[in-house]
């Protein structure tokens, strides 16, 4: 099962990197979302997969979890990583929109050129 998951992660990473290498900011953001997903899955995989594993909950009347329990630690890490990844994504999106309204382009090459010209006028 881990092998299958690893291949899926590999596909996600390859696609994310390919998108991030594009000069277009929007494609870059698509890549960013994909790579966050890939990393979360990788953390999940490194905590090992329990096939048919039950969630890490303590059943009523027990003191400890019973049976094949999924590893709780990576789950806690991923949970916060997802929320932070969302914060990062939203911030980048806002940045892209700001850049577009200020520079009129989402092409990172063109941005670099217009940045110098517009330094005084637009980027307040």
């Amino acid at each position: 099962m881990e092998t299958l998951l690893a291949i899926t992660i590999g596909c996600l990473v390859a696609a994310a990197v390919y998108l991030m290498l594009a000069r277009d900011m929007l494609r870059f953001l698509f890549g960013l979302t994909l790579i966050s997903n890939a990393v979360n899955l990788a953390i999940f995989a490194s905590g090992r997969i329990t096939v048919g594993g039950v969630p890490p909950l303590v059943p009523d009347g027990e003191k400890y979890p019973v049976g094949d329990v999924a590893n709780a630690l990576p789950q806690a890490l991923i949970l916060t990583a997802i929320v932070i990844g969302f914060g990062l994504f939203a911030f980048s999106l806002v940045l892209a929109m700001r850049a577009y309204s200020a520079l009129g382009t989402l092409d990172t090459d063109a941005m670099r050129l217009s940045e110098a010209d517009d330094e005084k006028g637009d980027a307040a």
Partner: protein
Amino acid sequence: MNSLILTTATRLIVAILLVFSVFMLLRGHNEPGGGFIGGLIGATGFVMYAIACGTAEARAALRAAPEQIAMVGLGVAALAGLASALFADPLFTGQWLFLGASEGEKGLPLSTVLVFDIGVYLVVMGGILTLVFALEEEI
């Protein structure tokens, strides 16, 4: 989007989502849920409201500014962490009070851990709404 059906339905759904989000927050210590999930659900409710009725109305319904909610949440979480200082424990050590506890019955648990989770809830909800409202107003 001035669909009457959407607007009406959304009011109902937002109310349900808000109640549900608090439910998820409170049960989080023992069942799937918690501050992160609760905050996300609450935020989703207001995001839907903003889409259906506009951000201005969503802001009005929220009453407080979302960025203030986030900051208050951060403060609540920090206070919950600092509370352990009163009991000479290390930072962020959970403190528990079991109301009405008796033999074999734990009673109603109140804890700084719950307060901390409420802080998380507020930060997540406030933070996301700040972002989303700002983005939508940009359009």
